[in-house]
């Protein structure tokens, strides 16, 4: 049976992991390579690394980090942030990533998804959607949540899946950073309109939140950042809990 995935996310700014890091047993907690190794050994099912500022001048630092992380982890590895072209994707994959996550540029130029899927295969193209609830629907935002697009999140997810995206990384902007639980309603709606896996993100605060996003939200995977970095929740314990609730989880 296909297991639900637990995915820690490293938000990297200028070569350092940011967002509530509180590790005691790691010498350099801001070092993405050290953290990646730690999560690999903790039983994470996958790792996502996002270049949150995605500044051009630091692109080479980013590729170095991708290369170093890839050497140390033996689980799937997704990299995103500021990807604009087929060439950007190629460089990230060559540096050792298994998948890339595309957000803003996919909205600006949906053909990028199709072209990327044709060139590298859908399995390595993850479409990231940042969605915010407005009245009774969800709108897509880009540029790190700063710019509205007037796109409906459900329509966009459906369109992107048809265009060739292999997975959707869905972040609820309303829940992100609140630790009040995932937006299960949003996740369930997106999951039911696409035939590709949906990774839920934004709002995880307790073990129960993960359980609910899998059962109510129908998510295929759940992502969290500071919750894991702060050690408020440990992946091993979380997985034990989910197994006890009869969720299919890799041991």
């Amino acid at each position, binding site marked *: *049976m296909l*297991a639900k995935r637990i995915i820690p996310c490293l938000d990297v700014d200028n070569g350092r992991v940011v967002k509530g890091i509180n590790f005691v047993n790691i010498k350099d907690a801001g070092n993405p390579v050290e953290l990646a190794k730690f999560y690999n050994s903790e*039983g994470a099912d996958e790792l996502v690394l996002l270049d949150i500022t995605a500044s051009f001048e630091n692109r080479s630092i980013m590729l170095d980090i991708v290369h170093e992380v*890839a050497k140390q982890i*033996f689980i*799937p590895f997704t990299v995103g942030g500021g990807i604009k072209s087929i060439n950007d994707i190629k460089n990230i994959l060559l540096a050792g990533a*298994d998948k890339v996550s595309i957000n803003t540029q996919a909205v600006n130029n949906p053909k990028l998804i199709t072209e990327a899927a044709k060139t590298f295969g859908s*399995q390595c193209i993850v479409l990231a959607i940042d969605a915010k609830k407005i009245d009774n629907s969800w709108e897509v935002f880009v540029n790190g949540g700063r710019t509205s697009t007037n796109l409906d999140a459900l329509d966009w997810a459906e369109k992107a899946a048809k265009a060739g995206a292999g997975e959707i990384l869905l972040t609820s902007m309303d829940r992100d950073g609140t630790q009040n639980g995932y937006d299960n309603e949003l996740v369930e709606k997106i999951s039911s309109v696409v*035939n590709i*896996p949906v990774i839920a993100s934004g709002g995880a605060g307790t073990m129960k939140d993960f359980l609910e996003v899998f059962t109510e939200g129908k998510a295929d995977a759940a992502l969290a950042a500071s919750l894991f970095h702060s050690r408020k929740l440990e992946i091993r314990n979380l997985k034990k809990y989910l197994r006890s609730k009869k969720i299919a989880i890799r041991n």
Partner: protein
Amino acid sequence: MIVIIDYGLGNLASITNALNKLGIKSRISDSPDMIKKAKALILPGVGAAGEGMRNLKKKGLDKIILREIKEEKPLLGICLGMQLLFEKSEEGEVDCLGIFKGMVRKFKKERKIPQIGWNNVMLTDKQKLFQGVPNTTFFYFVNSYYCQPSDKSIVVGVTEYGERFASVIRKGNIVGMQFHPEKSGDLGLQLLKNFNEAIC
């Protein structure tokens, strides 16, 4: 030295990284000489069967692989690399290497295709290849198609995704894994180690 056959598909670096971690010497190459000198071959691959076969043929690697296999050189096919060992793939109705009799078919019963994620492998045969690997271990899969060998005796691991399929095959020195051992954590690495120790 193990040669990871380079035919322009897949994340070859991740296999190299895994073998490096295990201290197993390897090289990525498409050179007939290197392939001949290698103690074993890995046929990797992510992507479409048609493009895979086209690339192999363009470089003349299809014939070289068949020749090396005749001389009993160990071969590990991973993901698409396993599927290409069979006669024909439904993915574009492509003729493959035909080392094993059987077809490569598309998943039909599950809604979400490709299968992306960790799934169990039920070990149907006890052998050194599986040393230290518990039954029903999770491995990382990314596939829309699966192998259906005519000779069931080569199936040593099965997995369920809507339908039951052969996730590990072995005949003599030839092994196929539908999942990615190089991306399947410690037990994936263990399988690569076992391939190196028990078969190479």
